[in-house]
C-alpha cells in the first residue's frame, strides 16, 4: 500500500526523522500556526504532481487561499486531489536522494543514495547512484552506513545527521514491512541539519495484518477493484474492452497478450485462481458485467480444477442472471469435452484453440 506523502511523514515523525512543519489544509482557518512562505502539495498516490501543477509555493494567506482552491479537486493523472499538505519552506543548502527498496535478485534490502537529490531518480546517471545491501539475517550495520555515506562528500556533522536518518529509515522499513522507503530530496539545511522534504512509503499489502495502526486506504484502486479486493478476487481494470476471465495469474496475463496479437485489447484482468466454487464464479461474472466489457473471454485450463465443474457454475450464472455481451470460451484440461457441451448448451461460443478464441474475441470487440 502506497502511503500519501503526509502519512509517510507521520511515520517519519514517529521514528524521529525531521520533516518541515506542516499540516493538511482544507480552508483558510487551517493555515493558523504555520509561518509563510509555505508550499502547498497535492496528496496523490502518483508521481509527476509538480509538473501537473499540484505543488505551489505561497507567500501569504490570500495567495494560499487562492492556490489551495486551485489544487483541491484538481485531476492529476486520473486522481482527484482530495487532500493538500501545507508546509513551511526549508532553507535548502544541499539536496540528496536516499531510499531503501527490495532487491529481488539478491533477496535483500538495498540502500540507494545519491548526491543528485530532488530530481526523478530514474533520470540520474547510474554512476551517480550508490548502492549498499543489507543482509536480512543481521540487519543494517555501521559499516553499511559508513560505506554508502562516505560516497556523498558530506561534512562531518552532515554525515552524522544523514547516518542517523539512514538507520532510522532502515528501522521503519523493517518494522513496517516496507517495499520502499524513499526520501527525495533529503536536504541539508542552512544550519547543517538534515530533513526529509518528501516521503514515499510503500507497505507490503501481505503484511498489513501486522500493522493495524496503518489504516488501509485503497487510493490506487477503482471502485470495482475495491469491491473485488473485498471479495478476494484478483480483478484489475485496464484500458481495453474485452473482459478476460482465466484461472491463474500467468494464464490470465498470457490471455490478455494473445488478444493484443489480434488487435484486441483487454479491459479486465480477472483471475479465478484455483477455485471451482459456484459462488465465486457467480461473483466473478457479476463483477465482470459491472465493468461493461464488449466481449467476455473465458479461458480455462483444468488441472486440479475440473473444467466441467466450473462450466456448470458459469452456466448457472448465465442462465439465471443473463448476459448482454458475447462470451467466447476456450477450455482445456480435465473433463474439457463435458465442459464444452455444458457451455454450448448455455449458448456460449466455444473455440478450440487459444489463438482462435483470441481472434474471435478481438474481432467481436471491433479491434483495438
Amino acid at each position, binding site marked *: 500500500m502506497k502511503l500519501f506523502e503526509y502519512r509517510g511523514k507521520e511515520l517519519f515523525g514517529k521514528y524521529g526523522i525531521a520533516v518541515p512543519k506542516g499540516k493538511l489544509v482544507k480552508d483558510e482557518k487551517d493555515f493558523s500556526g504555520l509561518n509563510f512562505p509555505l508550499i502547498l502539495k497535492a496528496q496523490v498516490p502518483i508521481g509527476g504532481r509538480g509538473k501537473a501543477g499540484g505543488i505551489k509555493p505561497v507567500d501569504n494567506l490570500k495567495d494560499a487561499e487562492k492556490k489551495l482552491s486551485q489544487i483541491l479537486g484538481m485531476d492529476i493523472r486520473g486522481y482527484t486531489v482530495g487532500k493538500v499538505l501545507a508546509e513551511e519552506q526549508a532553507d535548502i543548502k544541499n539536496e540528496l536522494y536516499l531510499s531503501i527498496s527490495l532487491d529481488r535478485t539478491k533477496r535483500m534490502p538495498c540502500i540507494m543514495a545519491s548526491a543528485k537529490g530532488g530530481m526523478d531518480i530514474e533520470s540520474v546517471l547510474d554512476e551517480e547512484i550508490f548502492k549498499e545491501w543489507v543482509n536480512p539475517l543481521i540487519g543494517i550495520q555501521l559499516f553499511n552506513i559508513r560505506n554508502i555515506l562516505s560516497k556523498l562528500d558530506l561534512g562531518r556533522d552532515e554525515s552524522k545527521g544523514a547516518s542517523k536518518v539512514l538507520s532510522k529509515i532502515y528501522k521503519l522499513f523493517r518494522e513496517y514491512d516496507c517495499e520502499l522507503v524513499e526520501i527525495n530530496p533529503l536536504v541539508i539545511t542552512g544550519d547543517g541539519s538534515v530533513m526529509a522534504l518528501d516521503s514515499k512509503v510503500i507497505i507490503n499489502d501481505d503484511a498489513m495484518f501486522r500493522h493495524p495502526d496503518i489504516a488501509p486506504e485503497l487510493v490506487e484502486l477503482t471502485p470495482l477493484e475495491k469491491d473485488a479486493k473485498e471479495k478476494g478476487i484478483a480483478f484489475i481494470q485496464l484500458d481495453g474492452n474485452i473482459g478476460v476471465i482465466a484461472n491463474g495469474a*500467468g494464464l490470465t496475463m498470457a490471455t490478455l497478450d494473445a488478444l493484443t496479437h489480434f488487435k484486441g485489447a483487454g479491459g479486465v484482468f480477472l483471475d479465478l485462481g484455483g477455485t471451482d466454487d459456484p459462488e465465486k464464479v457467480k461473483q466473478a461474472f457479476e463483477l465482470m458485467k459491472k465493468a461493461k466489457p464488449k466481449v467476455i473471454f473465458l479461458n480455462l485450463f483444468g488441472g486440479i480444477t475440473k473444467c466441467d465443474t466450473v462450466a456448470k457454475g458459469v452456466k448457472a450464472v448465465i442462465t439465471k442472471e443473463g448476459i448482454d455481451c458475447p462470451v467466447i470460451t476456450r477450455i482445456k484440461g480435465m473433463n474439457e469435452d463435458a465442459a464444452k457441451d455444458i457451455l454450448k448448451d448455455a449458448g456460449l461460443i466455444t473455440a478450440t484453440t487459444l*489463438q482462435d478464441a483470441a481472434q474471435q474475441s478481438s474481432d467481436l470487440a471491433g479491434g483495438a
Partner: protein
Amino acid sequence: MSIFVDEKNKLVVQGATGHQGVFHIGEMLGFGTKVVAGVTPGKAGQEVHNVPVFNNVGNAVNETGADTSLILVPARFAKDAVFEALDAGIKTVVTITENIPFHDAMEFVHYAKYKDAILIGPNCPGIASPGKSKIGILPGSIFLEGDVGVASRSGTLTYEIVNSLKEKGIGQSTCVGLGGDPIIGTTFIDALDAFEADKETKAIVLVGEIGGTAEEDAAEHIIEHISKPVFAFIAGRTAPPGKRMGHAGAIIARGKGTAESKIKAFEKANVKVAKFPTDIADQVEKYS
C-alpha cells in the same frame, strides 16, 4: 535423473490435516511420492491416508526420516513453519503458501542458505519429477516422463504448457514452479544450472513473466554457462506499468520488469521466445 527431487525424497507435509493437506497428500501418494509424515500441532496420532501425523517437524523427522517438507500453512504462520522445518534438519522445503510478507520470505530464503537447504517457492505450485515424485499441488495427470526440464514463475500457465508438451509426446525430466512472488528461494539460474548438470535433461523451457529482472539475469547466465537449448515464454507483454498482475511479483516498477526487456535479453542469449504458450511445444518438437 531429474533435478531437486526424485524417488528418494521422504516428505513431511506441514499443514496436513486441513482440506488442502488431505487432498494433496492423496494426490501425491497417487503420483508415487513417498509421503512419510504430516504435521499439525495438537493432532499427533491422527492419520491422513494412512500417513501418520505429528505435532512438530522434529518428531516427524526423528520417527520417519523425512528430509523434505511441503508447506501448506496459512501465510502468517509460514515463516515459522519454514524455520521449523529447517531447524529440524529438512534439506528441501517447498513452500506453496501465497501472500507471505516479503520480509518473512527474505529471512527464510537466507536462513535456508545458512542451512544448506533447497527452498522452492513461496507462492508456487511445487515441483514434479514424472515417474519419481511430486512435491506440491500440480495436477499429476499433465506429466509424462521425458527429457525436457521446465522452470516457471506461474502455475496454471505452466500446466497448460506441460500439457501441450505431453500431447505431442514430449516428456519432462522435472517441472519446477519457482513461484510468483518477488522474493523466492530457487531462481531460474538455480534451475538452469541444475538442468545443465542433469544428464537426463536435453532441453529447457522457462516460463517467465513481467516484474523484476530474473529473466534478464537468466539470459546472461545462459550465454556463459548453459549449453542445452532453452525455450521461453513471457507472460504480461501487454500489462501496464505499476499494476500488480495477480502475482505479487508481476509488476513493472520504476521502469524495470517489462516483457520487452526480458524477450530482448532472451533473444540475445539465443533463447526462442514463443508468442503463445501453446507454441512452445511446437518449437521443442521441431528441435528434437
